[in-house]
């Protein structure tokens, strides 16, 4: 019995840590979704690019992946700005039968990124063997007579903490700065924002850049605990998408809670059903969210606020 509880708690902890990282991926997607009303299907592929940046910095210059956050996020910001300015913005003006051309466009971008990575870096699996990769803290080290044994992996906790710091920084940016407020105004009502003197065009470009930078940061946090291959992007695009639906379309608070729920649920499926089933679990929670909670976590939060 004790071992069962131990397994459950351990799964819960790792799910929570994973969820924090997922939240970062979902945040970027929710932000882009909120401002531009499009789903960025190249999201995971942008993360893959950031992971390659971190990987090469580590392999060539021995720069710790956590420090490469400071290199990869600005780079990804520029990449995101470029994509929005030169590819997605022109398409917004084109007249066509299908309204979702921008979404299909992001698929094309993702395809090119993933394939170029295969061409240049081969499809080999890579990882950054950091010295602290297997370091962990054990409960029994601190509490001698603990009835159960739990461990906390050092790189996972470090990644989680960094994700929390980035999220807080984003929150400060969105609530305290002028640009942040303009972005939120654009997300709420772009026409009204335009009338209030917000440069909506620039906000779109900046938002896509920030979304890309966030997922770039997530990539750097993932590389010490995960492995890397060119086709990895689409899996994380799915993660980001499920989180945006689970959290409520375009809601940032929802994205954080959605990320945590997904992370915990996924490690539960991995523990109790097997690793291969994790993507199915991801989809199950997605379907459940659609059927039982179509507005996502955000709608729950809103109804609570109204209830007061």
């Amino acid at each position: 019995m004790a071992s069962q509880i131990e397994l459950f708690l351990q799964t819960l902890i790792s799910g929570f840590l994973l969820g924090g990282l997922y939240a970062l991926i979902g945040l970027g997607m929710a932000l882009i979704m909120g401002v531009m009303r499009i789903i960025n299907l190249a999201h995971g592929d942008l993360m893959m690019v950031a992971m390659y940046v971190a990987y090469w910095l580590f392999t060539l210059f021995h720069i710790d992946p956590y420090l490469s956050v400071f290199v990869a996020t600005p780079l990804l910001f520029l990449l995101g700005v470029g994509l929005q300015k030169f590819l997605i913005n022109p398409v917004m003006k084109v007249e066509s039968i299908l309204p979702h051309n921008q979404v299909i466009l992001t698929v094309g971008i993702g395809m090119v990124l993933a394939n170029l990575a295969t061409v240049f870096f081969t499809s080999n699996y890579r990882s950054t063997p950091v010295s602290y990769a297997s370091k962990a803290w054990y409960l029994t080290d601190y509490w001698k007579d603990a009835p159960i044994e739990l461990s906390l992996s050092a790189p996972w906790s470090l990644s989680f903490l960094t994700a929390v710091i980035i999220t807080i920084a984003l929150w400060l940016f969105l609530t305290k700065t002028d640009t942040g407020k303009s972005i939120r105004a654009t997300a709420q009502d772009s026409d009204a924002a335009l009338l209030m003197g917000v440069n909506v065009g620039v906000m779109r470009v900046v938002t896509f850049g920030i979304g890309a930078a966030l997922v770039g940061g997530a990539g750097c946090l993932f590389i010490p605990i995960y492995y890397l291959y060119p086709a990895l992007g689409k899996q994380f695009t799915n993660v980001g998408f499920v989180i945006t639906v689970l959290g409520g379309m375009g809601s940032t608070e929802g994205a954080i809670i959605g990320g945590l729920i997904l992370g915990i649920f996924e490690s539960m499926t991995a523990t109790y059903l097997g690793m291969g089933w994790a993507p199915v679990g991801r989809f199950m929670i997605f379907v459940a969210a659609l059927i039982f909670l179509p507005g996502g976590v955000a709608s729950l939060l809103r109804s609570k606020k109204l209830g007061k």
Partner: protein
Amino acid sequence: MKRSLPLIILVLLAALPLTGLSSYIMHILVLVIMWSVIGMGWNLLGGYCGQVSFGHAALFGMGAYSAGLLYYHLGISAWWGLLVSIPVLTITSLVIGFICLRLRGAYFALATLALGEVLRVTAENLVKFTQGDLGIMIKQRTWVEKTWYFYIILLIAAGSFILIKKVIESKLGYYFIAIREDQDAANSLGINTTLYKTIALCVSGVLTGVAGAFYMNYMGYIDPTTVFPLYDISIVTVMVVMVGGVATYWGPAIGALIMVFLAEVIRSMPNIGTAHQTLFGILLIFIIIFLPNGIVGDFRKIINLFKPRGALK
């Protein structure tokens, strides 16, 4: 002339095997026609009804697996799959519709995308039922020659073409287009949008599934990564229609012709072969920016490009 054009093209295509083409050319032709069928299916849902799906691999794979599993478990000819895939795909489409058609636009697209991935993972993990990654292999294909395969898929394609034309020219077609143009307006005019979207999905699913069942018979081997892949089936389906022409009768056929030939040419080039997705992606970006309605849809635009400047006035 315009009315008899489909018939003339059908007769010309039917006469093609008589000219003694090499087996490789026949193979490419069979693939082109198969992709036209899938494209026509996608076009009904995506082009006419406006519900862009990124998960047609799920429908294609279900068709292929319903043929393959019949052969593997019951030992009967996989050709029965062509018939069996119709009810199987109707049910699958109803389930997919129940889940995904609650969503609009990009969300629908993504939900279908996730579904394709889930079916792939499920097929990989249900090893006892589907053989997992080992795949299903037909020990002896019905014919070595491609001629009969060509006629069968041509028949399916002709049937699909007539079906789509009849549907689009009927009341249903107008409902579909009304839903694509403005779902809320269609709803307020008394069109049961969910019902008609589900019908479009079912017809689309059945056509794609039959093409999948044909693929099983034609190739003689399937595994989860060849029939459920995101890029090689779902995205290529979208591209076939985007390149050819969204919401046009001939768009999927033209698109299939271009995409299959392009894929063959790129793959046969040394060094560039691995980069075929990059080239496809760039083609997709190019088409979306410059020819958003595809080659058939923007045909006038292309002709105007080649006309002397004076002619424009």
